[in-house]
């Protein structure tokens, strides 16, 4: 199907990158794909940029993705969407991002402007990247933005070889009780 498929996940510490990444890698295994991944941990968690990289396929050796060679960038915040796109997304790839805004320090200090959606859209057009903005107006719990994005990816089949059932299995593997029920509900919407 493919020699390798690279998934670059990016967000801000505290947004639930860990669960999202774990769900994708587990879903890949459920689908019978070879998968490996690595998260950034430690200092970066404190409100800084966090990334998780997942590589699928038999020709993916290191868990680390080369710059400009991610097939898909999944972001949970608007600035980080642009960051991930700038550093890792290949031209012609997919950008999926939840349009939350957590302004970086310099924006809050009013030394630089907030990144606007129009900028991202224009850049996607310039680089022939498929633009997928995800936003759910009525989402009560911001901790589930990650699962909203996962639901979108499943619905639109953005990762080849991983089906909706695979994602569902992964979520069921990772969560239990009411948390599982709530997340499944959000995933299915």
């Amino acid at each position, binding site marked *: 199907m493919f020699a390798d498929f690279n998934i670059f996940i990016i967000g801000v510490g505290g947004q639930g990158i860990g669960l999202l990444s774990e769900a994708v890698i587990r879903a890949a295994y459920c689908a019978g794909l070879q*998968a490996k991944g690595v998260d950034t941990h430690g*200092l970066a968690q404190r409100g*800084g940029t966090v990334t998780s990289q997942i590589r699928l396929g038999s020709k993916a050796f290191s868990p680390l993705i080369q710059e400009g060679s991610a097939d898909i960038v999944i972001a949970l915040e608007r600035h*980080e969407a642009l960051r991930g796109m700038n550093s890792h997304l290949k031209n012609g790839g997919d950008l999926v991002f939840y349009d939350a805004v957590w302004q970086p*320090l310099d924006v809050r200090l009013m030394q630089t402007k907030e990144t606007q959606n129009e900028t991202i859209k224009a850049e996607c057009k310039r680089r022939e990247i498929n633009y997928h903005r995800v936003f759910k107006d009525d989402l009560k719990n911001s901790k589930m933005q990650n699962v909203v994005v996962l639901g979108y990816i499943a619905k639109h089949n953005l990762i080849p070889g991983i089906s909706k059932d695979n994602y569902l299995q992964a979520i069921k593997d990772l969560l239990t009780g009411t948390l599982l029920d709530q997340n499944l509900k959000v995933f299915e919407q």
Partner: protein
Amino acid sequence: MKKLPEILLSKEKTQEIMMGNWGLVRAMVEANVRVVTSYPGSPTPEIATAIAQIPKAERPFYFEFSVNEKVATEVAFGASINGHLSCVFFKSVGLNVAADSLVQLGLMELIGGMVIILGDDPGANSSQNEQDNRHFAKMAYIPIFEPSTPTEAYQMFKEAAALSQEKKMPVFLRLTTHVCHYKELIKFDAWNKKELDPNPKFDAKNGPYIPITTTVFPLKRKALKKLDEVADYSDKTTVNFIKDNGNNDVGIITMGLPYYSLLDVMQEMKVQPDILKLGMIYPLPKQKIIDFLKNHKEVKILEELDDIIERDVKMIAFENKIDVEISGKSDLLDWENEYTPDKVKEVLRKQWSQFFAPAIPKDNKKPKLTPRPAQMCPGCGHRSAFHAIRKAINKNVITVGDIGCHTLGFLPPYNIGEALLSMGHSNGTAAGLSLFNTKRKVISFLGDSTFFHAGLPGIINAIFNNHNHTLIIMENGTTAMTGHQDHPAVGKNFNEVSDKIPILNMLKGMGVTNIRSVDTYQQAKLTQAVKDALAEDGFNVIIAKHPCMLKFMRELTKKKLGTPPKVHVTAKCNKTYECISVFACPSYQVNPDGSIWVQEDLCIGDGSCKQTCPTQAIESKAKEEK
């Protein structure tokens, strides 16, 4: 998916997707390790996270977070010379703390065996340097394994444990950050559980264990002899292997995660060099290296961080008069940062541009973006502290930071903490800064876990030598930065309730007479305390206390106690931007029109911001909207 403890304790063969750090715990179980110790530090603390998931009664080994890496090493040593297989793990710079005892271990007859897991940090992801701990292996006569993947980490731990038990010597297992956190499917062997032998095996005759004057020489000879034996093993073991691409001209010697970076990059190379992949990097497999050098005209050493293997390989070639072109690092850039696939490509391109297609020109049209540095969390007591301290001091005051979440105070807008060396350095450094200095006051900072770890000698020195500076202890009740491990003032350890050792009592006991204790949310009070302290001569201490709010909020959620209402900005706001530009809680965001809004995904409703607004425009919402 089975629960983690079921996998870690399975008697049968099993498999699971997990990170390298977790796989190591399964390896400890299978190797029948009896005592494990550590001090938390990235990239290794997730080893303890996995251990913590096994209920204490079912844990096949004893585990503790010791007060620092040196004590952790000593506890593991004591267990080993009593006959128990032991293991200690810590981060790269943790080895510096452990070093005083660690360098002795090679001289000792470790009858139970002992494995030392190092979490090195090329790329300085969460450390103050990129130190290459392979240097210590040579200095301390300790063999060192270096895995590339979680599977290798798991396998090599068992290999290291067996070697350590056989030779009764310490063995290093060196992982780097992205091997620790690398996730893949690991296939585990069965566990042949060995019952605990509770008989103490310590016997001074196994030693001697007192290395002093002339007894050092036979001990050293014995250590070197063991290393010679391990060198034979290194030549035989399959952890050092050749990936034969049938290339008689070009070869590459590499190790660790850079091996897989290389495999990625080779997919783009016109020439496929043979590879000698090293899993044991000290002592080196000499014969394998000789053969590899003889079989190629040109050999490149692809080595992350320092040029340790490069020098050894060049020496082997020289001693054996091998006619081969050997290259290693080509410039200073080759010494820095992690050897990711991108970095390896850059390094190899410098050597062999002809093997690559021309580089694609850089796309200069990408939109610019500001970086997002790590921040103190919303509600963090340290933010209130820095905000209050800033009001008490001018730029003339010198502030010395230390390791911990409060290190982040160096960032704008606080700019507090202007020098940093290591855990607990602040009071020594501050004392030095105060000498011949009557014009600029000096403030040192220290976290509470660091107070116990390495902070005490600097404080005692300040008392002992009548130094002249103010220490502010940032007490948040936990070891926050590495994931909320308990410390001696908390009242519980990894395993059970333990007697609290209050910092205030310790300071009093040491004879510090001038101590002020303030909750950091009482910002005005803290500002005054700092002003008062700086007006005095001599050494004094302020304990700036507030519980870690990240931990606190998690506990509230866990106990389903509900969370306080979030704040909002009312019409009273006249845009002085104190909340945004001076207090700088990440929850406060600015609209293009200059108005301020509260990002409710971030706000925890702590309300510590309210007192910072000169027009009292920050209020809690009436009640939490569900």
